[in-house]
């Protein structure tokens, strides 16, 4: 049986095909302005890449911020439940998930079956999210994909004290004006995200092993900062960004 998970996030749309409990194929595109179109586009992409026929797909679950705009999905499930299911698939031992996506960050605690026990989400502010990093990358004129490796070279991470994206950006700009090295500013940004997310996760109480999911998990600097602030080692799968879509495809199997 083939099922599909579609995760329409605020920055990227992801798709995962699962066949008989095994991952068959995945796809990622940029969401862009129209989340409805993004859902369809990523669907088309995965079908053509995997060489799977639409009729073969027996169930579709949509997740992510655009989950309700995916008209061809049988059901929409929140990314909290889907990330837990996806993380459990990637490593059944995992008991906690930190998911930092484009628009928000979440901490999730699960049971041994991958079922959500409790979760916490950031407040309305975008600080500590992927969008925050994008804003900072623009201010620093650095490719966001280089953030992780650059921050690891920092000799003296800068202090970014503001929790607000707008204020933090102006702090970064004044650091640039002072001639602070890029690598130190970037490390400081990662530290500030780490503090913020660790505070939220601490309130929830993380149980090890902890896995980080979502697009921001690709940034090794944020992962290291989070490990430092939470005092726990954090594993990251190659599939981090696709965890929600994988979870959605797995849940589609049970419906």
């Amino acid at each position, binding site marked *: 049986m083939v099922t599909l998970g579609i995760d329409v996030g605020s920055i990227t749309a992801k798709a995962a095909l699962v066949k008989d409990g095994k991952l068959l194929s995945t796809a990622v595109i940029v969401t862009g302005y129209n989340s409805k179109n993004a859902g369809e586009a990523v669907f088309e992409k995965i079908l053509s890449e995997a060489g799977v026929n639409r009729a073969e797909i027996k169930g579709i679950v949509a997740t992510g*911020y655009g989950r309700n705009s995916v008209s061809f999905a049988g059901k929409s*499930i*929140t*990314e*909290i*439940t889907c990330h837990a299911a996806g993380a459990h698939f990637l490593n059944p031992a995992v008991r906690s998930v930190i998911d930092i996506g484009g*628009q*928000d960050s979440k901490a999730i605690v699960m049971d041994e079956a991958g*079922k*959500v*026990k*409790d*979760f*916490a*989400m950031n*407040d*309305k502010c975008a600080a500590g999210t992927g969008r925050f990093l994008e804003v900072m990358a623009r201010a620093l004129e650095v490719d966001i994909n280089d953030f992780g490796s650059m921050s690891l070279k920092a000799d003296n991470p800068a202090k970014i004290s503001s929790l607000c994206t707008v204020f933090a950006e102006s702090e970064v700009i004044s650091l640039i004006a002072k001639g602070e090295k890029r690598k130190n500013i970037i490390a400081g940004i990662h530290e500030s995200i780490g503090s913020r997310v660790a505070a939220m996760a601490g*309130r929830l109480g993380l149980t090890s092993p902890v896995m980080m999911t979502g697009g921001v998990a690709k940034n090794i600097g944020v992962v290291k900062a989070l490990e430092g602030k939470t005092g726990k080692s954090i594993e990251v799968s190659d599939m981090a960004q696709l965890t929600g879509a994988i979870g959605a495809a797995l849940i589609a199997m049970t419906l």
Partner: protein
Amino acid sequence: MTTEGQAPDPEKEKRKIKSVKKMKEIMTNYYIEAKSAEQTGKKVAWITSGGPVEPLIVMDIIPVYPENHGAMIGASKMGVDLCEKSEQMGYSRDLCSYARSDIACAPVNGGPIGGLPRPDMLVCCNNICGTVLKWYEVQARYFNVPLFILDTPFCHTEFSDEARKYVRKQVDEYIEFLEMVCGKKCDFDRMAEVGKLSVRGQRLWQEVLDTAAHKPAPMSAFDAFFHLALIVTLRGTQTVIDYYTGLLEEMRERITSGISAVPDEKYRLLWDNLPVWYKTKWLSEKFAAHDACLVADTYTSAWCGSLKYIDENDFLGTMAEGYSRIYLNIGVDEMAETVIEMVDKYDADGVVMHSNRSCKPYSLGQYDIQRIVQEKREIPTLMIEADMVDERSFSESQIETRIDAFMEVLKAR
């Protein structure tokens, strides 16, 4: 006239609470009377929501509630405009949105009813928060009217004898203040009578709320948010008793005929903190779509929560304690106990907490209360960050995800 295509959904019609019409009439008449006080020669006092209103009723003064007005501003989605106006006047966005919208309303007669009637005096009781002190000082200066402040010490763990004497003494001073402003003596026989009416009104309100302990609940917290207005504004009058007697009867009839607030109630939730006034319909429909009913809340029950401290035969002597030991003026441990009692009484499956940017005393201990409830009752809790009036602090898609995820957790249990 309704055409066939627009005929009201009979299922929805059946669920509508019939008393609502009467309530709207009472509130309209109340505001008309208050707004025509200048013509009729009656005096108007602005008073905080937790303040002792009974002496005002005795002295024939019309009590007016800026907080009730704030709720109306929020519900009519005029909050952002007024909050921005107050920010232009120099008030910080971090201040309470009731205070901001009320302060902005006064000079322009803004809001849904064209501003509140001009006060002859202000009565401020700090049992609900500290903001009211500065807020009422601002308004006393603006209207150039006398202000009475009733100071109720915070009851961390107990209400000491010293505190009792201290507040009791202020009750006398309060009455003297009213006598001075009105130029007439207080009728203490009438005071005893109004005190009894107040207690009866509070008991009836509690009975109305208690009907939601029935499964399925005949009313939800969203209904309580609406019907609350009377116990706040007209406590101590016969009007309250007559209205709640009728409402209680209607709720009992709904129970008998199996009419529930939510069509297919499967999950029962408890709400904490003030309503998100501009989103009550959205939230109510959102939860109902998950077959969840918010069966009770800590907010509306605050107007009958301290009944146990009041002796109806010695109202004046015991109101000091009753007004001091309300939900917002007690320690977090006792608040958590109250929440747990409510979870048990209404058999709630989960707790939804509104972390209200405006109301610091209400929101401060919520993480602790959340933890205590989770430890003692092992039920899931949800935290929603918003504001009661200022829509700028509400993110619909984020809150929708949280509610959906919370319901997924509840359903998977």
